């Protein structure tokens, strides 16, 4: 059983179509937002009976003995329910940052974000730096560009922590090149 309607869900359904005895793809609507070629392939495999499309359904509950999955209960938005026997469920949903144990590191994480000094990426804990989506400060722009810049800021700041006795001279990779490490 594969849940989801994006590229990952459709790619896995197609990849497993030849090896799994049965594949069900559960999705909440007719349209798949996967690339057109992969969507077309999915519908070919469905027409050939290799993949069962369970549409428009969403996951509602799982049945099992506490160790192994036995069946997945799916429901439409109107409440119509089906029970489908399954050995495995692969769920492909969304993008969400989860801090997990980092929440307990005492870094003041709030709503999934750790406050940092934007000029260094320094958190409230000495020697711990945060960059990218996890790092927050006023007027942050959530851009990949910003993430790269934060990496450079944090690397410079961390260098001074790791090598307190060494001077770090500012360089551009375009003029100084990228150091090649002898292995």
């Amino acid at each position, binding site marked *: 059983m594969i849940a*989801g*309607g*994006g590229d990952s869900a459709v790619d896995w359904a197609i990849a497993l179509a030849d090896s799994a005895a049965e594949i069900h793809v559960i*999705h*909440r*609507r007719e*349209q798949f*937002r996967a690339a057109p070629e992969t969507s077309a392939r999915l519908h070919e495999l469905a027409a050939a009976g290799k993949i069962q499309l369970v549409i428009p359904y*969403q996951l509602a509950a799982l049945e099992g003995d506490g160790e192994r999955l036995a069946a997945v209960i799916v429901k439409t*938005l109107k409440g119509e329910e089906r029970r489908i026997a399954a050995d495995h469920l692969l769920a492909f*949903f*969304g*993008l*969400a*940052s*989860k801090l997990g144990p980092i929440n307990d590191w005492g870094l003041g994480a709030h*709503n*999934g974000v750790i406050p940092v000094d934007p000029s260094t990426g320094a958190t409230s804990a000495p020697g711990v730096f945060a960059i990218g*989506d996890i790092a927050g400060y006023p007027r942050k*722009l*959530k851009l990949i560009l910003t993430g790269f810049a934060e990496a450079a800021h944090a690397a410079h700041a961390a260098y001074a922590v790791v090598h307190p006795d060494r001077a770090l001279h500012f360089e551009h990779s375009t003029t100084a090149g990228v150091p090649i490490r002898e292995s």
Partner: protein
Amino acid sequence: MPVIHFVTTSGETLTLAAENGRSIMEVAKANDLPMLAACGGALACATCHVIVDPEWYDRLDPPSEDEEDLLDTAHGLTPTSRLCCQIRVSDALDGIRVTLTPMD
């Protein structure tokens, strides 16, 4: 200024004044409500998923195909689910009620 009623996952209702033109997500974040809104409103995730009060749902402009694509990735979808970064505050929405969804 229009007001928005936010119902939290614990059932508490918070009523906030909102400037016209802002998105409901921006109002929620500016008031530090528990919402990830991970992509910042760029229509690249579904972490500002809210459930719009059925009385209000049909008064909104319908979701775009891009929003529908992202709603595919939201958990606990309902018939009146929306991404609130796509809902602009206006006088017509004065008093709208939305329920926040769990952050994880």
